[in-house]
């Protein structure tokens, strides 16, 4: 019913004459005193509440980084858990300021939804999980399988492409939330559970017996996951975009949450520009000049948040893979600050 509420919200908002100029998102956030951030309903490692009820994860840390840059306080964020189906409506209607919820960047989402993707926080791809006792070693052996997935995702479209282009029979059962999907898979209604590989790893932890399931080697799609904002506010678009870039640049320059205070004394001009001891780059964004110091001090650089949430230092233990820095053979590459 959330979806209906969302739709009615846009309806209400959108029915009033257009003459009223909307305030810039940054100003709205400052007046509210917090950032409203759309996240998932619980994917460990990406966005999930911990045992104390605090939201944690890679996607969550991006929101905290934005809050740190604006308020110098990473706790000034409120989170809206959203299902895959409801997420865009929530952003369009202004219910949230930024959507940071394992969302794949696609052309139609970037254009006809009136939204903009600000970058890629995680390079992902879609995979399949099956029960070990089905004795399947490859996705090509999945003919005639029943497949569980979540509706309103790129996943349900990719899986249709995969099976139909190979003329393999299959049956798809799509559920509204991740929990329903996982429950149906766990109960044996489906032979296969499919979604982005990172989420397969995360959801696996929720199964009754995680060890009984394997993830097949095939990756059937490109899923660049990134934060999303509404079109029409270039300043806000830049802030969200450069928050992620600041974290990637910080990793590249060796600036970490532990050494950031010393690094402000560094003579290296690149580091000086990043940390605001030279130039007025923060101001150009509408932020204080030490914006990147705030981000790295409170949250860390990209490598740190990756490691802590999904990488070697976490329960998921996912390999950096494509998400290594470009200089280390990966795809993570941030434009220079100058």
């Amino acid at each position, binding site marked *: 019913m959330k979806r209906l509420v969302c739709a009615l919200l846009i309806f209400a908002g959108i029915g009033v004459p257009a003459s009223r100029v909307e305030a810039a998102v940054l100003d709205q956030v400052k007046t509210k005193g917090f950032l409203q951030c759309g996240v998932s309903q619980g994917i460990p490692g990406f966005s999930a509440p911990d045992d104390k009820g605090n939201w944690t994860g890679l996607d969550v840390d991006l929101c905290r980084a934005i809050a740190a840059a604006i308020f110098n306080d990473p706790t000034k964020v409120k989170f809206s858990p959203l299902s895959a*189906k409801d997420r865009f409506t929530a952003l369009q209607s202004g219910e949230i300021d930024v959507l940071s919820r394992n969302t794949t960047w696609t052309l139609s989402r970037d254009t006809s939804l009136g939204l903009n993707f600000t970058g890629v926080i995680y390079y992902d791809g879609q995979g399949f999980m099956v029960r070990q006792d089905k004795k399947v070693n490859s996705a090509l052996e999945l003919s005639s399988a029943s497949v569980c997935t979540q509706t*309103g995702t790129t996943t349900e479209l990719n899986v249709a492409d995969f099976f*139909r282009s190979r003329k393999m029979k299959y049956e798809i059962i*799509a559920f509204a939330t991740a929990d329903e999907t996982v429950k149906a898979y766990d109960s*044996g209604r489906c032979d296969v559970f499919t979604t982005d590989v990172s989420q397969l790893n995360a959801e696996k932890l929720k199964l009754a017996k995680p060890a009984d399931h394997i993830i097949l080697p095939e990756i059937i799609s490109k899923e660049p996951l990134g934060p999303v904002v509404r079109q029409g506010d270039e300043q806000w678009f830049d802030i969200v975009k450069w928050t992620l870039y600041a974290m990637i640049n910080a990793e590249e320059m060796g600036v970490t949450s532990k050494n950031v205070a010393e690094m402000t004394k560094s003579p290296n001009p690149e580091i000086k520009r990043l940390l605001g001891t030279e130039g007025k780059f923060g101001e150009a964004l509408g932020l204080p000049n030490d914006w990147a110091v705030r981000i790295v001090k409170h949250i860390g650089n990209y490598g740190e948040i990756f490691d802590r949430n999904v990488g070697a230092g976490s329960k998921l233990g996912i390999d950096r893979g494509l998400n290594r820095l470009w200089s280390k053979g990966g795809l993570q590459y941030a434009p220079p600050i100058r």
Partner: protein
Amino acid sequence: MSEIADAGRRKGRSLLDNPRLRAILVQSLLLIAIASLAWMLIGNVRTNLASRNIASGFGFFDVTAGFAISQTLIPYEESSTYGRAFVVGLLNTLLVSAIGIVLATVLGFAVGVARLSSNMLLSRLAGAYVEILRNLPLLFQILFWYLAVLGTLPGPRQSLSLAGEIFLNNRGVFVPKPLFAAGSGAVALAVVAGSALAIILAIWARRRRLATGKIIATGWITLALVLVPPAVTFVIMGAPLSFERPELKGFNFDGGLRVVPEFLALLFALVTYTAAYIAEIVRAGILAIPRGQTEAAYSLGLRRGLTLRLVVVPQAMRVIVPPLTSQYLNLIKNSSLAAAIGYPDFFYVFAGTTLNQTGQAIEIIAITMAVYLAISLVTSALMNWYNRRLALRER
């Protein structure tokens, strides 16, 4: 100047003094106000959507949908359009609603009558049924049927089977599918002809009874008329019927007719839940008929069953039908809870998946409202027609 104004005022006053004219005036003003408000709203919505770069319009209906649907009554593929997905979803909603309404009515009447039974055990059981089913949230009942009942069935390889023909597992129910060969047309024709004769016989028997008061036993003749011609044709045409058996192939059964567990779970939940309400309506309807009617029937020598069937229920129907209509409407609307278990009903396919993949919330929510409104209005219209037929005719 003042004279003209005066005249105008006087004329105006006399016009406004006419109650009929005044009513028409007020109503048309209201209509104009509502229409212009709607016009303004639509205009604003369009400009605002455009200024936010959100796509609008109804062009998406012939764009390729790209997603698969697990139950389709008409041919549908991933390469079909959103328009076709719309129809598939609508048919799925109509299917579960129509079957649900029929079964809920049967079960509801049975429970309602049982509750009034003089057999203590039966009436207590019926009472317990009503109280339990009516007081648990429907969503919970749907999930119960889906996860706790159908979800615990064995997998396809360990299917429960009936005579090796019908299979039951956590992927649904599989039954042999009838394949009609050449010559089945003639059999179908025989069925139609036989039934037509049976109906003519029934009409004739009724006329006779009304005219002469004699009851003619037509039961056996009717049965013969319906069964014998098709059977004879079937044999003459060389048994033009075979069955395609469901067979285990790979992960699942292939071939045969299949009913998916999502449909069954939704249907069971809707039927048992709505039947509890219908039972109460039926009980109230029967209790509303004065006891004197029953006593009069008894003193005419009618048996209990006949009294109920010929005297009580026909009168009770007048009390039962109007609230029954609203239960039917509830069942149709409740079927939209299908999303929770992934049954591809209209709400789910259209206001869920299609809305999300196209992002056109406003158009889709508006169409969805219109569709449910239309289904409800048609249902009420049918029930109202039925109700008028039942209404007391003064003679």
